[in-house]
């Protein structure tokens, strides 16, 4: 077991890749193949590729565990609640359920729904409908994911699309009224990043499966 620096790095990477690989037999197969490669640079490239493969396989197997599924389900439920929040606040204000409006207002930036009255007044009726539709799509996606039915990722991204349309419309209302609902841009960005990464996880989790022959 001798070799140059590249070879030693390759061996170390391969040992790690073999450990990471969820199927130990395949990890050993990748590992042993390294010794058949004469060129050190090729061996290093081989080891890096195997490390990527090992982590990919590990990620794939983790996506099927109950705790990851539960986490993704929780995130989708959270996103659905986020979609229902603004319509509920608008509904509470317009129907004069001011106690509810006050309660919801405490969960907005500035802790007071009255700051948002100009935005609520300028909101067209179809916009809350759009958000509710997005929320319902998230819930259906969640239901389908839990039942391991196909199409949950598609429904999720449809909801994501509706949310984006809603966000663009909300932005124009904010511009016209001069009231910014969420002033912290990082909070806004985090919401969209969370939504996108949940969607990617869901897509990877529910990709169509081929049956063994």
């Amino acid at each position, binding site marked *: 077991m001798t070799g140059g620096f590249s070879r030693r790095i390759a061996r170390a990477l391969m040992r790690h890749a073999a450990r990471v690989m969820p199927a130990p037999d*395949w990890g*050993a197969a990748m590992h*042993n193949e390294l010794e058949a490669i004469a060129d050190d640079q090729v061996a290093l490239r081989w080891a890096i590729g195997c490390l990527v493969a090992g982590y990919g396989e590990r990620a794939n197997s983790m996506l099927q565990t109950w705790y990851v599924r539960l986490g993704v389900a929780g995130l989708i439920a959270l996103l659905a609640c986020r979609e229902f929040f603004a319509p509920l606040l608008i509904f509470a204000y317009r129907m004069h359920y001011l106690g509810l409006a006050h309660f919801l207002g405490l969960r907005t930036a500035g802790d007071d729904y009255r700051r948002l009255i100009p935005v609520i007044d300028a909101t067209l009726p179809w916009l809350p409908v759009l958000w509710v539709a997005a929320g319902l799509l998230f819930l259906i996606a969640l239901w389908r994911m839990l039942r391991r039915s196909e199409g949950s990722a598609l429904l999720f991204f449809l909801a994501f699309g509706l949310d984006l349309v809603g966000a663009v419309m909300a932005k124009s209302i904010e511009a016209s009224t001069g009231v910014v609902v969420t002033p912290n841009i990082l909070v806004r960005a985090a919401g969209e990043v969370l939504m996108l990464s949940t969607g990617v996880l869901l897509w990877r989790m529910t990709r169509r499966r081929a049956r063994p022959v």
Partner: protein
Amino acid sequence: MTRTPNRSRQTQRLLAAMLEEPSTWRYGYELLKVTGLQSGTLYPALLRLSEQGLLEAQWREADEPGKPPRHVYRLTRAGLAFAREQSVPARKKAGALLGAKA
């Protein structure tokens, strides 16, 4: 756990390479050289085909003393049928392209 159907270009290349000498057991590194795939692509594809029963794998003692045993692979009967089935549309496509050029 079984996974995505084998429609990717990389898997098609792998199947085509294994179809050339269907009864021969092939090493992973050998398949990498023939297909031009990276090891990070090759092994997940081999693993997926194996899980689906399209590929069989076994350990073989190394030719040189002191070297560890190696995994060898070949298509199963079902794998052969699948690979042949997959190669037909590719051949038809190539034929159609050639016909269009002529």
